[in-house]
């Protein structure tokens, strides 16, 4: 992974067990692509469901948002801000998704995000999630979020 992509993952505000980005393949002006492999013992499998672990849809949305919106949004915000120091906070504002298949422990996901627009600090993208092991499209939808400076968050 390129150093600049590693730095984006390091800049993410999440920590395990809620960090859902293993690697980024590329981020450009127009989109992002990254990967996450579900661990065998993710905390949510204890309850979803007992003895029948299936990845919750909300977690799939989170994985897609972290790679497709937050990593990508940090990249875009950094480009815009250049070298200005800022503590950037991601805000998830909406998602409309279709789930097309189940995801089990140890499945490996590839998330691809394409920009619809990035204006007034709002990023709206078409995000798709593919299971690399089965080559099946798992989830697809439109995601929006804003990356804001921490000082502005209380307004």
């Amino acid at each position, binding site marked *: 992974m390129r150093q600049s992509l590693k730095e984006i993952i390091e800049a993410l505000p999440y920590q395990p067990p809620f960090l859902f980005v293993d690697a980024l393949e590329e981020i450009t002006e127009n989109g992002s692509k990254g990967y996450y492999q579900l661990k065998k013992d993710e905390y949510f499998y204890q309850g979803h469901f007992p003895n029948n672990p299936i990845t919750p849809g909300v977690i799939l949305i989170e994985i897609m948002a972290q790679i497709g919106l937050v990593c990508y949004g940090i990249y875009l915000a950094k480009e815009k801000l250049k070298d200005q120091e800022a503590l950037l906070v991601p*805000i998830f*504002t*909406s998602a409309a998704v279709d789930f097309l298949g189940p995801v089990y422990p140890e499945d490996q996901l590839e998330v691809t995000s394409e920009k619809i*627009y990035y*204006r*007034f600090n*709002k990023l709206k993208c078409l995000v798709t999630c593919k299971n690399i092991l089965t080559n099946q499209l798992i989830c697809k939808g439109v995601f*929006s*979020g*804003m990356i804001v400076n921490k000082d502005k968050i209380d307004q």
Partner: protein
Amino acid sequence: MDKNKIQEELKNIIAIYVPEKEILDNLTLEHDLINDLKINSAHIVDIVLDVEEKYDIMIEDDVIMQMGTIGQAIDVIHGKVQEK
């Protein structure tokens, strides 16, 4: 362009983003998009993009801050349309 016409058109644009539609029946110029109409602040961006497309105008980052109420939004749109 007539401000009443803009008001009517703006009402149609914002309608899909207003969670409680009843408010639209008695819409006034004083209604604040976020505080009164309860529009998700990220949807303000969608409204601005819809407005830009409808009137073929460009709204800059700092101008969006001046569009707090229906009346202010109409003034901004009216001004931009006049400038064209």
